[in-house]
């Protein structure tokens, strides 16, 4: 899923400083699961904003609404009445949701309330880690299901760099595993180290022509 983090409060307050009535719009999918922009986070942020503005004697009206997927026009259309009432929208969806909202309500300023960070998974309660770089040219068959494109700090395709720390940790972070040590161990376990010994040519970084577009195959 897509992982995001809420922007710092001060930054959010600056974004909406000129407005008297705003909508905090959540998304019920990825950002709900990663605790960044679901219904709960919308309610919490809305009340924090009301309190903060009230404390400085500059009252603000904050509406709240959460749709199932903010990246789909039909679902965003469900909250058009709330949008019509406010001066600006603060979207807690991923960048894709923010843009869908902004495109649908072109006369309204729509601001991002979160920073979209990566595609990942929950490692443990409250901790998410990056797993996929959406490169459009999946390499996981050659690496025991560990992605070197994003899990190696340098995106190397032919093995570890020379900077691996003792115990197989990453050059840039002693708390992170070196992706190539993980790949080695996985392939070793499967008796497939020959796959790691092969030379891999430079990646096609244009496998997805940016901006990306995928057309479903016709049945």
């Amino acid at each position, binding site marked *: 899923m897509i992982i995001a983090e809420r922007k710092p409060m001060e930054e959010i307050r600056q974004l909406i400083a000129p407005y008297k009535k705003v909508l905090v719009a959540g998304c019920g999918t990825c950002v709900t699961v990663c605790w960044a922009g679901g219904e709960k986070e919308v309610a919490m942020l809305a009340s924090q904003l009301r309190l903060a503005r009230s404390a400085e004697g500059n009252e603000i009206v904050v509406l709240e609404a959460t749709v199932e997927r903010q990246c789909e026009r039909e679902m965003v259309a469900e909250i058009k009445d709330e949008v019509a009432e406010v001066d600006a929208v603060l979207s807690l969806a991923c960048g894709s949701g923010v843009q869908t909202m902004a495109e649908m309500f072109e006369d309204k300023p729509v601001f991002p309330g979160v920073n979209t960070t990566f595609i990942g998974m929950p490692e443990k309660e409250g901790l998410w880690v990056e797993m996929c770089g959406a490169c459009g040219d999946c390499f996981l068959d050659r690496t025991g299901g560990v992605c070197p494109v994003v899990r190696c700090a340098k995106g190397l395709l032919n093995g570890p760099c020379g900077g691996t720390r003792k115990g197989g940790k990453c050059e*840039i972070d002693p708390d992170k595993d070196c992706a190539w040590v993980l790949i080695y161990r996985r392939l070793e376990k499967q008796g497939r180290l020959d796959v790691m010994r092969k030379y891999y040519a430079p990646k096609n970084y244009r496998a997805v022509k940016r901006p990306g577009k995928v057309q479903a195959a016709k049945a």
Partner: protein
Amino acid sequence: MAKSFREILKTKDFVVTAECGPVKGSSVSKAVEHIELLKDKVDGLNVTDNQSSVMRYPSLGVCLLIKEHGGEPILQVTCRDRNRLALQADLLFAHSRGIGNILCLTGDSIDVGDHKEAKQVFDLDSVQLIQLVHTMNSGKDMAGNELDGGIDFCIGTTATPSADPLEPQLIKVEKKLKAGVSFIQTQAVYELDELRRFMEFVRNIDGKVKVLAGIVPVIGAKMAAYMNENVPGVFIPQRIIDELAQAPKGTGVAKGIEIAARMIRQMKEEKICDGVHIMFIGREEKVPDILGAAGLL
């Protein structure tokens, strides 16, 4: 340095190279001093490429200075700052100006340097870079286009004999050897047994490649601890840290030189490797002291 490095690798028993770290700024007088001091005492002078991801005078620039002053430059090229177009263009330029040797490296991460917000490139990795040089050596660019005037580099690379775990590192080394390199300059070596084990591995794959062991003198216990924590791929054993800690105040540099020279002598006498690569960044003027103490002058 009358002979080319390629020739030296074929003919000399114990090859010695040293490293020149470019300055931060456009003033090259210090670099010229180091070149003048070292060019006739070593077989080749490496020039680092934005070493430790810290922006500096370019490797190519100092390599040209070495040529101008009659030395033999080894151009270090990392994959961190240039995509495949920029790398190829730099290689064409380097060859056209008489630079004949290249050391292909991955490069440190942007995160360890002084421009931490920069976009790091790594379009290629070091094995792919070696492959690229071979492709261009054969007269074509990476896209298969004919070059109007090709290149001809003597190709080297790096390795970390003390990596832990070692096996993934060795698979990478095997790929580099199979891609084809004439020399390896290793990361700093402090444990000779690690070097012996590494040499055995290399020799089983490639009987011809020359391995120059990396020598990084450590001049104090504090510096050693700092390097262990902050310099990627460097592991200084406690034994050496203790020896440095016991050295009387003010004698750290001399002690560091003594330890380095002792290791070099042993490497040479026991024929453990084919030479050494001395990296005394920031104290290049002391390199002749190491060479002298190791009996290499």
